[in-house]
């Protein structure tokens, strides 16, 4: 079946590896208040902080920054996209339907949680919600889609 916008199946395993490494790094960082591991590197912020005594990253100038959290974010997003949107081994129109429905489901769940957070969470805790919200739509989709595919496979076993 011709599919648009999907990666070949071979990218899926690669995606899982990047996603899992990214998530482990992200969890370690969040346990350590984003201080450790500290992988210092030169960065060039296009949009930075206002200049002051304590500011380290001003706009349009080279400066030093711990890039561990940036790496973790990129790995979770890129790995997540590859896992979510690589073809299954037996991708067909039924799995395409499940894919679409799971994506709608994930979008709803993601924004319901965000709406609840907007109403009930404030200040720094809300900022934390926004951090996780960058990834949750992908993660909800991956969980939902693979759960449904697993269920259809289990249904076949009952048939036998």
């Amino acid at each position, binding site marked *: *079946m011709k599919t648009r916008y999907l990666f070949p199946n071979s990218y899926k395993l690669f995606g899982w590896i990047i996603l899992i490494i990214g998530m482990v790094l992200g969890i370690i960082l969040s346990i350590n208040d984003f201080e450790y591991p500290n992988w210092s590197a030169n960065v060039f912020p296009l949009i930075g902080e206002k200049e002051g005594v304590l500011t380290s990253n001003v706009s349009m100038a080279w400066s030093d920054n711990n890039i561990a959290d940036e790496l973790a974010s990129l790995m979770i997003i890129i790995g997540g996209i590859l896992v979510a949107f690589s073809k*299954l081994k*037996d991708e*067909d*129109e*039924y*799995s395409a339907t499940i894919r679409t429905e799971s994506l709608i489901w994930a979008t709803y769940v993601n924004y319901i949680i965000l709406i609840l957070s907007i109403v009930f969470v404030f200040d720094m805790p809300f900022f934390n919600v926004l951090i996780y919200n960058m990834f949750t739509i992908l993660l909800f989709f991956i969980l939902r889609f693979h759960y449904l595919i697993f269920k*259809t496979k289990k249904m*076949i076993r009952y*048939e036998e």
Partner: protein
Amino acid sequence: MKNNLKVERAIKNITQAQLAQLINVSRQTINAMELNKYVPSTVLALKISKIFEKSVNEIFFLDVED
């Protein structure tokens, strides 16, 4: 939409897996169609009709809810 895929399969004496292979879909897709959980595309319906050498209307029919 309903269908008599299961009956047609029995007449031709082929398994879900064999039919799946013939029309290039997964076994889950055949199973979901037989359980009326999935309505196939026109392309897939035509492929199935070709395998069973019957017109699409003889294999698939509208349900009261449609």
